[in-house]
């Protein structure tokens, strides 16, 4: 299975993602933002970081970079595109997934482990996942998901909410919402569910000696689903 990770100026989780993808069997290629064409890929990842220094709005400049036109075409033809953290911010700026990511409610940069609920299994990303609650890491300043009332109705009707912030038992409540996100939303799909944007970093949870292994569960399942 082939994957591509796009590096923008200011990306800083691109190599972590490369390590994670390779560990679970992907043949990964790093792609520079100024390239025109994507290599043949089964999965394209927009990594976390601070592309273009978060100038103007997080992800807004990266969304207009050269390679993104190929990524958008790839997504529109049904290809799997996953945006993590800053990658999620880039995805909302391209319009591939609905909504925006505002500054965290209490204006703090949040860096901690959180529990997330993934019970939306009718998609390539989470199909066959045994567990409903995973522990992932978040590290962001702008992760406060927001969309208009009409958009919210549409994403709920289409079952596009991918991931919720919750407690270790999967309870989705206000008190487990780290950043003020609408409905505790941590991740969103596009309508067709081939594009996934999420704030948590599964690539930071692939080694017991570092932080945990719930990311391993996610990646192992993902590559099996793509095969």
């Amino acid at each position, binding site marked *: 299975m082939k994957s591509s990770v796009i590096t923008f100026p200011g990306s800083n989780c691109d190599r972590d993602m490369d390590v994670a993808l390779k560990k679970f069997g992907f043949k990964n290629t790093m792609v520079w933002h100024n390239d025109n064409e994507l290599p043949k890929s089964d999965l394209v990842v927009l990594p976390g970081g601070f592309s273009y220094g978060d100038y*103007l*709005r997080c992800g*807004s400049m990266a969304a*207009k970079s050269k390679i993104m036109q190929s990524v958008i075409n790839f997504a529109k033809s049904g290809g799997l595109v996953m945006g993590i953290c800053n990658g999620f911010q880039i995805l909302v*700026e391209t319009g591939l997934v609905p*909504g*925006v990511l*505002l*500054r*965290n*409610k*209490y*204006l703090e940069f949040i860096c901690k482990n959180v529990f997330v609920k993934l019970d939306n299994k009718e998609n390539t990303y989470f199909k066959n996942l045994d567990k409903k609650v995973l522990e992932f890491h978040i590290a962001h300043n702008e992760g*406060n998901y*927001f*969309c*208009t009332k009409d*958009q919210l109705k549409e994403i709920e009707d289409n079952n596009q909410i991918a991931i919720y912030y919750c407690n270790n038992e999967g309870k989705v409540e206000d008190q487990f919402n780290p950043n*003020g996100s609408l409905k505790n939303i941590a991740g969103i799909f596009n309508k067709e569910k081939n594009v996934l944007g999420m704030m948590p970093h599964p690539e930071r949870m692939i080694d017991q000696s570092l932080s945990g292994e719930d990311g391993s569960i996610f990646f192992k399942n993902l590559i099996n689903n793509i095969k």
Partner: protein
Amino acid sequence: MKISAIITLKKDVLDPQGKVIHQTLDGMGFKDINEVRQGKYFEIEVKEEDPEKAKDLVENMCKKLLANLVIENYKIIGTQ
């Protein structure tokens, strides 16, 4: 020709920075404030000399990059 544009958050979007500025001003003794909203201001120098065309050009920039229309409004406030 120089075109100025402001970008403001839409009414129903939470503005935590504006809130904190409001609280700080209040703490400094400015008690008569109902609300503070923070926005962005741009001055764009374009080659176009025709004011209407220059405005259209900057409006297009606002739509495509400077503002995110899900949460923000833009307004061209001056040409010179």
